[in-house]
């Protein structure tokens, strides 16, 4: 059950950021919903950033000709990890905002191209995090078209929980399925595949961690370029365990299908859900470790609670 809200209402009960899910079926509905959203923006003097799959880009370009207020971006340039998308959207919208100019985003994820269940789960979490990332951005709003043609109600419901607003028939309304609050209902991490390698580590073990990961990743077929990047990422995550989680942790590595994984467990707690999602400022002293891990790895999963500590999984895709 939804209710219509005023056109300038905030995206969520407390947030000025409008984040709308738009389930559609077929190209005609896609165009009507997105063009209506764009038309609202143009009438209000707002800029629009569009990041949708290439076939949808073609549809919109054909309708909009060369409308200067609308910019198309290629979401694949942000890389394979959904953990990079908040920063990518921030950059795109800041670039188009030109100061205080309001900006709208249209972002459709190619859900059917998700590489794994973990990737799918992190894509959904990214959608939920957008509400936090832009919670204090009154000039930004985002429409997330979702191709509901496959009638997968479970998938739609999962995604619906990440959007405070839902758009239907040209109107947006409060989405009562939205999971507000501070806790996200994460999917449970799958168990490590056998055989896995395990190493307990503490201060002074960073070189041993890198050696272990390098050997296992190399055996799994991770490329030289990715080995070098993984070395930095594991150093950062292990350093966090040593510095902020009682000085020790446990590393596990294994290969699952075409992915090499490194899992770090420690007793620490990451209170900030946005940690590692925003590009660091030149002058900030710390806070770059998770950011680098997100930027250097193909996928990063983080689960952290006060009771159970923190688990960070770094994924590197292996060529088939």
């Amino acid at each position: 059950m939804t209710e219509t809200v005023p056109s300038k209402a905030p995206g969520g009960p407390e947030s000025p950021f409008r984040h709308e899910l738009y389930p559609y079926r077929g190209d005609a509905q896609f165009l009507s919903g997105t063009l209506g959203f764009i038309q609202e923006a143009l009438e209000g003097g707002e800029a629009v950033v569009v990041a949708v799959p290439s076939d949808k880009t073609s549809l919109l370009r054909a309708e909009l000709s060369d409308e200067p207020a609308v910019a198309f971006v290629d979401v694949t340039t942000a890389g394979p990890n959904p953990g990079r998308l908040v920063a990518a959207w921030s950059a795109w919208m800041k670039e188009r905002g030109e100061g205080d100019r309001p900006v709208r985003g249209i972002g459709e994820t190619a859900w059917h191209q998700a590489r794994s269940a973990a990737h799918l789960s992190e894509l959904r979490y990214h959608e939920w995090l957008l509400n936090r990332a832009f919670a204090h951005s009154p000039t930004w709003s985002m429409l997330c078209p979702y191709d509901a043609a496959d009638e997968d109600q479970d998938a739609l419901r999962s995604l619906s929980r990440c959007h405070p607003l839902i758009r239907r028939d040209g109107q947006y309304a409060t989405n009562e399925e939205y999971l507000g609050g501070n806790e996200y209902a994460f999917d449970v991490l799958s168990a490590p595949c056998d055989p896995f390698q395990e190493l307990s580590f503490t201060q002074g073990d960073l070189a041993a961690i890198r050696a272990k990961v390098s050997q296992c990743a190399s055996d799994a077929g991770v490329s030289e370029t990715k080995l070098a990047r993984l070395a930095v990422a594991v150093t950062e995550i292990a350093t966090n365990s040593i510095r902020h989680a009682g000085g020790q942790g446990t590393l596990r590595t294994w290969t699952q299908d075409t992915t090499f994984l490194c899992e770090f467990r420690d007793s620490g707690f990451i209170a900030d859900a946005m940690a590692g999602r925003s590009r660091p400022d030149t002058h900030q002293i710390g806070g770059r470790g998770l950011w680098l891990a997100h930027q250097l790895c193909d996928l990063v999963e983080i689960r952290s609670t006060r009771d159970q500590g923190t688990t960070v999984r770094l994924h590197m895709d292996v060529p088939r």
Partner: protein
Amino acid sequence: MRAARALATLDEVELGDHVCWRMDPSATFFADARAYVADGALYGDKLVFVAPARNASGLPRTVPEGLPPASVVLDLPDSANTESVLAAVRREARTAARQGFRSVRVLTERIPATAPGEAEELLAQELKLDEFASESGAIVVCAFRPSLWDAPTLERAACMHPQETGTRAPRPAFRMFSTGTDRWSVDGVIDSECASAFNAALRAAMGHAAKVRLRFDTLEMIDAAGMHALVDAARHLPDRRIHVEGANDTVRLCWELAGYANDGVPVVMAA
């Protein structure tokens, strides 16, 4: 081009080497260095022994017996003073060249600092000695008794020697050594465990130079703590700049990702 390497024994020293010698706990300093001294005579090198301010037991310094006739003992009033030590060894190197020696072999035993600021002065002196070895082709051997040193201080000092030898001498995580005036090569890995040592080395190198050039050709990796150490060292004193060259793709990518690739940072990271 100088290169970092580990030596099995002091017999393997070459011209331009600057060696961190971690002595065996039971070693007698001069007895264990006898072969090094004797090789100097064999190759036509003049021995320059820099006497420590005090010996390892804290007793007044003593001059070793059995030095070759042409040896020089630098019994300086303040062997912790970098300028006076460097001036003395450079003077001896010039004299040795005039006397027809191939080069000089500098030998010194390092004694842990006790006065405030001596630890930093030690790093500065090691860098200057390294520059001296690089420029003159002299061989410099610095002996350390690990039992006398706290591990972090010894690690910092070791990082400023491109060569190491001795009992259970681990390869330092990184090494920073001279490749010319105010030019330094950095090899190995710089992570959170050695970032403070890297910072200290850079600060020492930048103490008297407005612009320092670093070669990262043989640096495998640098993490966020290491990058911060680099930027912090450049910002430590006003109007200082560090120009990094030869960094690999991953290092340059991390530098950009970390937000340091902009004009407001006094460090330039180039390929």
